[in-house]
């Protein structure tokens, strides 16, 4: 179909640029969503937007429709992973060449989207907007002590398992290439932290090129943090177990690579 399109247009017109979908997973974000969508439309007018309403009990879907944005409404809450996968599958079905994951609560800055897309153009498959590789010291993003410590443990686990060092394994501001979209549309971790840390490791292990781009984040415009401290310990242990359970596969791959090198 793509080839036919190019032939019809002939050589005079350049091939249409890659279409990009901005995916906003939203769970009860009626307060912040409208402003976020308005800012996105002003800052990045060339990008399509999809709001995935993750089983909200408030007016999230109506707010998004009022802004003229397509909405995919999940019949019940699936968590960020399920909402994201819905966005990936929508992107694949409708032929998008790349996608951006963007928070509906206003903590991401739309003016930093082009930086992520530029990294995709340079050949990356997964671009992570990192809070901790911030360019100016004033723009750093504060997290609690427990959360910070647990993040550190996971970071070390990812470093050991992937053989690479990332400054922000749990950022929700990311960009995806077409091959990675297809990969994630078929399988995506759905539990809390799975959607960030485990997905990152999956991409590394499948051989996708992962890069980090420094971004600064704002304070949440609305909504509540997704998880409280008590639950956090359980979630970090679960994620750690999940990461470690993939370790043998990793070791085998490394052994194969070592064998090939000799």
């Amino acid at each position, binding site marked *: 179909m793509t080839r036919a399109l190019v032939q019809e247009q002939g050589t005079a017109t350049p091939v249409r640029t890659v279409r990009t979908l901005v995916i906003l997973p939203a769970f009860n974000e009626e307060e912040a969503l409208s402003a976020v969508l308005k800012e996105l439309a002003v800052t990045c007018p060339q990008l*399509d937007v999809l709001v*995935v309403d993750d089983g909200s009990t408030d007016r999230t879907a109506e707010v998004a429709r009022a802004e003229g944005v397509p909405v995919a409404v999940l019949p019940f809450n699936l968590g960020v992973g399920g909402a994201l996968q819905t966005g990936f599958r929508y992107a694949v079905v*409708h032929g998008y060449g790349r996608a951006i994951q963007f928070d509906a609560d206003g903590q991401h800055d739309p003016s930093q989207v082009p930086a992520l897309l530029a990294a995709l153009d340079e050949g990356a498959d997964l671009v992570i907007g990192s809070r901790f590789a911030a360019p100016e010291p004033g723009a750093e993003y504060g997290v609690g002590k427990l959360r910070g410590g647990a993040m550190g443990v996971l970071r070390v686990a990812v470093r050991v398992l992937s053989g690479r060092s990332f400054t922000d394994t749990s950022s929700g501001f990311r960009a995806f290439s077409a091959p990675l979209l297809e990969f994630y549309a078929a399988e995506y971790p759905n539990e809390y932290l799975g959607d960030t840390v485990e997905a990152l490791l999956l991409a590394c292990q499948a051989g996708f090129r992962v890069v980090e781009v420094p971004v600064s984040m704002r304070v949440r415009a609305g909504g509540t943090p997704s998880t409280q401290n008590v639950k956090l310990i359980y979630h970090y242990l679960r994620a750690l177990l999940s990461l470690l359970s993939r370790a043998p596969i990793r070791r085998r791959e490394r052994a194969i690579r070592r064998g090939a090198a000799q």
Partner: protein
Amino acid sequence: MSAAAHLFILLLTVISLLFIVRMVRRNQLPSRYALLWVSIGVAIAFLAAFPGLLDRVSTWMGIAYAPGTFFLGAITLLFLIVVHFSWELARLDARTRLLAEELAILRADPPHDAPRPTPETQPVDS
């Protein structure tokens, strides 16, 4: 054990079996689960009817306390059943999620400048 105790266990087992048969007849229990529980019920009834059997098996296995043999068997079996249910639950959960996602995509508005969308979505193994 006294004869009264055996009678009591037999009665209990027969009632449980009847309960399972009734669930099957009402289409509340798929036959694969019914088969599992009926076999377990029959095995327990058999042990209750012939108490010497358990003692002999215990001696053969070198277990001094005969009920210990029974509990070992029971716990092992129940453990396997629960693990199987965890697996089945996880599979059902994955399928339900997929259905929810597909439903949301089918009901979602298409992109504004939509080219003809492909009708099939990605097949997913789960």
